[in-house]
């Protein structure tokens, strides 16, 4: 969440940036969408879209597909901003290079987009291949800012991304006023759907970063909720209703679900059987990366621990490039939990002491497979081969109705230059190549060499002993049952 001041600053920054390139200020995002302007803009956008559609076919694919060189504005762009043209050329060159650097095995996945290009492309300039919605209502600055945060990876993790999305919708819908000139869309439910929900989601997904299953599920839920509102409610009632729904979703499906998982009776350090939890033979839990649910479980264990803090310890396995385990390490240490921290290479070495493995998840496939942060499958596999129980902890809103057999069909590509880094320090957000002295620092110039940064992997259900949700602990084969129970209408 950001303060209002920040947003205004961001909006102002975006505005000034735009102004340099497009003095006419055709599509400058307003600080807050105001009614009168919005209406005029909608009209303009419609005209522009129609024009673009008319001229779209004969355009040569390279330059003109770039939305910045739209035919109507071409002269203006060229005249006032020679430098911008140069930037375009440079970006095209980079684009070409990165085309060479895509890995053929993974060419079906959308290529990684540099967050800088998200800023340069701007909020209204839809990326290649995305058709303009018929009515373009300008995107709210909060949406754009969040998109940038998504692209940059500042907000990551299934829960955080979903929460941020819902919070953004909460704010945007609060700011929404139905325009008087509504272009034929009189129903406010449709207006919200067509002008806010759909374009925002599409912007995030297509321009910033592919959406997570959590975002997809929450978005579907929100759309359904909006559509099922009464038609003749007043604007204020409707906004209030939607905001309440959003808050309830965050509270119940994410926050309370997390607490319920942490308090699952089966996960508590057992007070009855003193054989396993005495101080001579402490339980050793292993976890990978960072997960809110896992952190909550361990904190809860530490809080309810009657013996002392030494009746269990946690081994945190981490891996590059994100090194999210460090955050978890700090969090658990702050709760006084005894921790070990290793990288993935030491996994087999530490596995012999482990009594139970807890893993987080990004999504649950309906066949029981677990889509998690890349590396999760390695840990689950290793534990499975050592006959150590693997518990996957995730809130039930992460269940997806999709099915995936292995990690490659559906995945996401991260920034390949992160592979070339050789520092294990937490990723710095400044220039990527600043502190890279590894053997691969000139990988872009090396022929035959490509780097692959997968973000997720799929843990087959055989490796999973149980899935801990707020509804209880279920075997992975029962995920489909849970999905059906939760959505009886499907």
């Amino acid at each position, binding site marked *: 969440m950001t303060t209002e001041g920040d947003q205004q600053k961001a909006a102002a920054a975006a505005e000034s940036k735009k102004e340099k390139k497009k003095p006419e200020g055709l599509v400058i995002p307003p600080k807050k969408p105001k009614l009168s302007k919005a209406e005029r803009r909608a009209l303009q956008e419609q005209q522009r879209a129609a024009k673009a559609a008319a001229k779209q076919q004969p355009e040569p694919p390279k330059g003109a597909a770039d939305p910045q060189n739209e035919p109507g504005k071409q002269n203006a762009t060229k005249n006032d901003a020679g430098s911008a043209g140069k930037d375009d050329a440079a970006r095209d060159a980079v684009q070409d290079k990165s085309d060479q650097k895509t*890995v053929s*095995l993974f060419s079906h996945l959308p290529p990684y987009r540099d967050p800088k290009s998200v800023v340069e492309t701007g909020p209204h300039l839809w990326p290649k291949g995305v058709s303009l919605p018929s009515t373009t209502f300008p995107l709210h600055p909060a949406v754009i800012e969040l998109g940038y945060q998504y692209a940059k990876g500042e907000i990551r993790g299934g829960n955080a991304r979903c929460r941020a999305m819902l919070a953004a919708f909460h704010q945007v819908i609060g700011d929404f006023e139905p325009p008087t000139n509504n272009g034929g869309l009189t129903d406010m439910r449709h207006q919200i759907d067509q002008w806010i929900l759909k374009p925002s989601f599409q912007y995030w997904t297509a321009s910033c970063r592919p959406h997570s299953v959590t975002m997809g599920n929450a978005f579907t839920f929100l759309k359904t909720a909006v559509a099922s509102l009464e038609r003749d409610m007043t604007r204020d009632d409707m906004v209030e209703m939607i905001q309440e729904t959003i808050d309830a979703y965050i509270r119940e499906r994410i926050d309370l679900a997390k607490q319920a998982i942490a308090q699952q009776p089966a996960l508590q350090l057992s007070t009855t059987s003193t054989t396993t939890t005495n101080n001579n033979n402490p339980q050793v839990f292993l976890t990978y990366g960072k997960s809110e649910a896992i952190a909550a479980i361990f904190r809860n264990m530490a809080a309810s621990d009657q013996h002392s803090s030494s009746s269990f310890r946690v081994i945190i396995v981490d*891996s*590059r*490039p994100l090194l999210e385990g*460090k955050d978890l*390490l*700090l969090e658990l*240490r*702050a709760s006084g939990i*005894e*921790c*070990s*921290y*290793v*990288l*993935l*290479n*030491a*996994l*087999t*070495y*530490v596995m*012999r002491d482990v009594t139970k493995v807890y893993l987080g998840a990004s999504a649950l496939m309906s066949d029981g497979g677990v889509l998690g*942060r*890349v*590396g999760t*499958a*390695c840990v689950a*596999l*290793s534990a499975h*081969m050592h006959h150590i129980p693997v518990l996957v902890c995730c809130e039930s809103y992460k269940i997806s109705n999709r099915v995936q057999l*292995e*990690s*490659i069909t559906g*995945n996401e590509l991260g920034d390949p230059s992160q*592979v*070339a880094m*050789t520092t*294990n*320090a*937490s990723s710095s957000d400044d220039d990527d190549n600043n502190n890279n002295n*590894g*053997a*691969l620092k000139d*990988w872009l110039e*090396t*022929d*035959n*060499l*490509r*780097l*692959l*940064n*997968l973000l*997720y*992997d*799929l843990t087959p259900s055989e490796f999973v002993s149980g899935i801990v949700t707020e509804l209880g602990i279920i075997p992975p084969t029962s995920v489909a049952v849970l999905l059906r129970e939760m959505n009886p209408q499907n």
Partner: protein
Amino acid sequence: MTASSIPDLGSNSLSTSDPAAVRSWLSKHHPKQLALLDKFEIELRLGRLSSTTKAGPDGVIAAVGATSTSDRLLVTRRTVGLLKHIIGATRWKNGAQLLVLLRGLGRELHEVGGFREPVIENIVRRVMAAVREEAAGEPDGKATDTGRLSLQSILWALPQHVKSPSNRSLSRTDSHQRQSSIASEADLESTNEFPPAFYVNRPELKQTVMEAIQEIVTELEDVYGNIEDQATNHIHAGEVILTYGKSKTIERFLIAAAEKKRTFQVVVCEDSPSFGGHEMAKSLAKAGIDTIVIHDSAIFAVMARVNKVLLSAHAVLANGGLVASSGSNMVALGAYNNAVPVVVITGMFKLCPMFPHEGQDTLNDLVSPSKVMDITEIKDDLLSSVELINPVHDYVKPEHVSLYVTNVGSFQPSYIYRLLAEYYHTDDWKSFE
């Protein structure tokens, strides 16, 4: 062990394998050789063996062989060079004396760092086996007691099982074999460590031993060539091959396949935190091979598209298991679960006559965790009590290895034990600890 039972064969000869005794013996009779040994030990401790026996000033050594610790073949060659020099220049009269000296050297080298480099002990054992073979032969060169298949050799292999009476009867029945022996009956009774033939003073033994060592040297020189010759048998067109970290053997194996016009893709795992994979990927790409670098965490994800996994070895164990750089076990498990064959490419000088009784601790080493978490990150008290672990090696079970491709051919893990008998004598199996 049985060192005390060895008779004093004259004031000039070494009587025990105790490293200290070896050193004092060398310093008394062969100061030059001791200096050479010291130099080798210092370089070994520093972890930078230079590629030549005659190293320049320290700065040059560091520049030439900074990465040599990962080059086990170089370590092996240097050790053979050292042994050859010492054997050639020192005074010993018979096989028994030489074996005592070699065992002493083995213990000495083990102490100064040999436990990190099992190849050193391996090659000492190998030379010892060669000495045993030569010493057991008749003076005219015809081998009668090569220690392989005869019942007698089996008995001698475990001398503690041979009781004195049977020893006596044995010596009576086989007396024709030892007619040239000048060893007295009393000598035979008091010494039970080596077969009697080893105590025969034979001036020509030195030459035959040196020839045998030269054979080993030649074999070591041909290691890469022999492995490269098999490359096309294992890599076919269009394959996706996954390899982990850096290995010179695998690098040359892949490049050899590429030079024979095989087109394939190589996925290199970076091997964090040492990042050997980065260097590996770079040299493969330079050789024109289509190379993809991935994070270690993506191993399981990518495994679904991989046809073959190539692993390098730190040591090959007697049960067919493998000690390789840490993280290799995860690769092997991933491959096993995806039914991808795991092929280990290694020279047989890495074959160790030991079993992995210590599991993951077998031949393992824990090194500084500074690469796991930088010291500057441990500012606050919260992190100061966190246990950080950075092991160097992983043990991979034989059932997760499909094939060993070596300089002497390709073998299943279950066949490895058989090669042990070819390389080492069972009496030398025990550790130099």
